[in-house]
């Protein structure tokens, strides 16, 4: 019996040693991720968990526009492309449809991308527009996060420079949930307040309604 117990004890010690050594090596040698990158990754996570984003934004000194931006596309298109679409319905009567890849924006006076519809989609908090931009910056450059103030609240500002615009996503300092977005481009700039609504089962029906509208 003692011999069996000795065998078991030694085996457990070796296994525990393997786990401890593996963990210790990783903890001692690999760097932890930068806090700014973690903030940005958390913001992406919040965005991806929402199916709908409601927004109120103003471009320049224009009027406040309310928008609903839904992820996905209700048609029978291949799943991949439909999940990368976004539909932004504005209370002014306009609808912007964004399809990746190819950055096509419909409903804005042509298929070619131009700063204005992009600025609108970004201010509308469209997940499939904003989240990939943040993710791209996290993985390619050093993401910058600054303490800031937006929509009357303290915030962390994630600075996301892109090819056409300068995007700033404001997140709460504790949970890193996005609640405001600032966009600047050579011709347009604006600020929006956004509300993330979780993805729901009624999502496809809602998107059909929005497109029908």
């Amino acid at each position, binding site marked *: 019996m003692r*011999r*069996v117990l*000795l*065998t*078991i*004890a*030694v*085996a*457990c*010690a*070796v*296994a*525990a*040693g*393997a*786990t*401890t*050594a*593996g*963990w210790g*090596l*990783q*903890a001692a*040698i*690999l*760097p*932890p*991720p*930068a806090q700014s*990158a*973690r903030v940005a*990754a958390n913001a*992406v*996570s919040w965005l*991806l968990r929402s199916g709908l984003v409601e927004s109120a934004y103003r471009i320049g000194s224009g009027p406040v526009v309310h928008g609903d931006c839904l992820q996905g596309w209700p048609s029978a298109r291949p799943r991949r492309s439909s999940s990368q679409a976004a539909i932004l319905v504005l209370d002014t009567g306009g609808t912007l449809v964004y399809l990746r890849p190819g950055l096509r924006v419909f409903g804005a006076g042509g298929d070619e991308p131009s700063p204005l519809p992009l600025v609108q989609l970004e201010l509308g908090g469209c997940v499939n527009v904003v*989240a*990939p931009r943040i*993710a791209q910056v*996290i*993985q390619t450059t050093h993401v910058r996060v600054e303490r800031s103030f937006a929509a009357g609240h303290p915030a962390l500002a994630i600075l996301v420079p892109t090819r056409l615009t300068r995007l700033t996503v404001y997140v709460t300092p504790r949970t890193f949930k996005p609640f405001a977005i600032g966009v600047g481009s050579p011709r347009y700039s604006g600020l929006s307040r956004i509300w993330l609504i979780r993805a729901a089962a009624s999502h496809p029906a809602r998107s059909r309604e929005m497109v029908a509208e």
Partner: protein
Amino acid sequence: MTGHAATLAELPQPDPEAASGAVARLRGHAWLVGWWAAGRAVVLLAALAVHLFGPRGYLDTQVRGSAFGLLDSWDASWYRMIARSGYLLVPGRQSDPAFFPLFPLLLRIVHRLGLGYGPSGILISNVALLVALVVLYALTRELLGETIARRATVYAAIFPLGYVFSMTYPESLVLALIAAAGIAALRGRWVLAAACAGGAALARPEGIFVALPLAAIAWQQRRTLTPAGRGLAVGAVAAPAAALASFPLYLNRVLDDPLAWSHAEHAWGRHFTPLGIVDAFEQLPAQVAKNGWVVRDVVFLFVYLVLLVFARRAGAPWPWLAAALAVVVLPAFSVSFMSIGRFGLLAPPVFWGLAEAGRDRRADRAIRAVSLALLAAATVTVPFVFP
């Protein structure tokens, strides 16, 4: 003065016999070093030729900018990213927790010595391959005899997909650790076997399958081992799983998500299902239409299966074959054949099977010539397809 002389005389003197033994051993391995050098020369020259004359393929300018940038492409960027900035799961996107930690860990250590990340990765891989060949030779000689061991080692050094052994990828390191774990276990050095097996599992998930041959060796030695020795042997068998467990624990520490690896793999389109291999064959035409290079991996899957049959004919032990089969076939259960050609490099029985196929002198010469030619050709494909 006399006192000093007496002290010097008391110091342990180098043993001329031991020294000459080491030199003899080194000389005895000269053929192995020669084949390693020949194989690596083919890969490095092909990489240099691509750098100088193209083709450009999908490689970015940064990769094309250095002489051996080709060998530091594709997944190399993920390993560099981990070594430089640590792990970070970016939801909904391919991200670095899909890659195991041992290789980036070594990358970071060598980088700290003053070498850039790119050269560090290439240096580690090529040195690890030399070690892998030495231990593969020792393991094969112990299991299957001298002639098979020599041929298997030569074929491993010049295997057509062996350009991966020179890239900033962990394959050569894992092959070295798997073979080292096997030979250490056969010689009853179970602590070393545990360390190597654990290391293999921390470098690539396939490393965990080395537990199968280790378990068989431990079972064979059970009557000769003391109770403590048996404990060491059982511990070595458990070491790959135990070491593997440290990865989610670490991810939990830095990312608050012990399943970050699984989430990252999902973004890569890999998810294991019981009927995954059936689905993989069903989806093969669509996969081929999307990326014709997948045919290469399907071909290698079947080549590996045939080589495992040859390895059995050569007398390869079943546990090694079972582990090799797991390494080669299991990835197809993730509904994809992609990279199976590369994964098979981690299975020593693949090289044993090839050595058996090269038993005939003419076959041996043909395999060597074709392997060298294919190695050069395959290296040139790197700009177009990830290994």
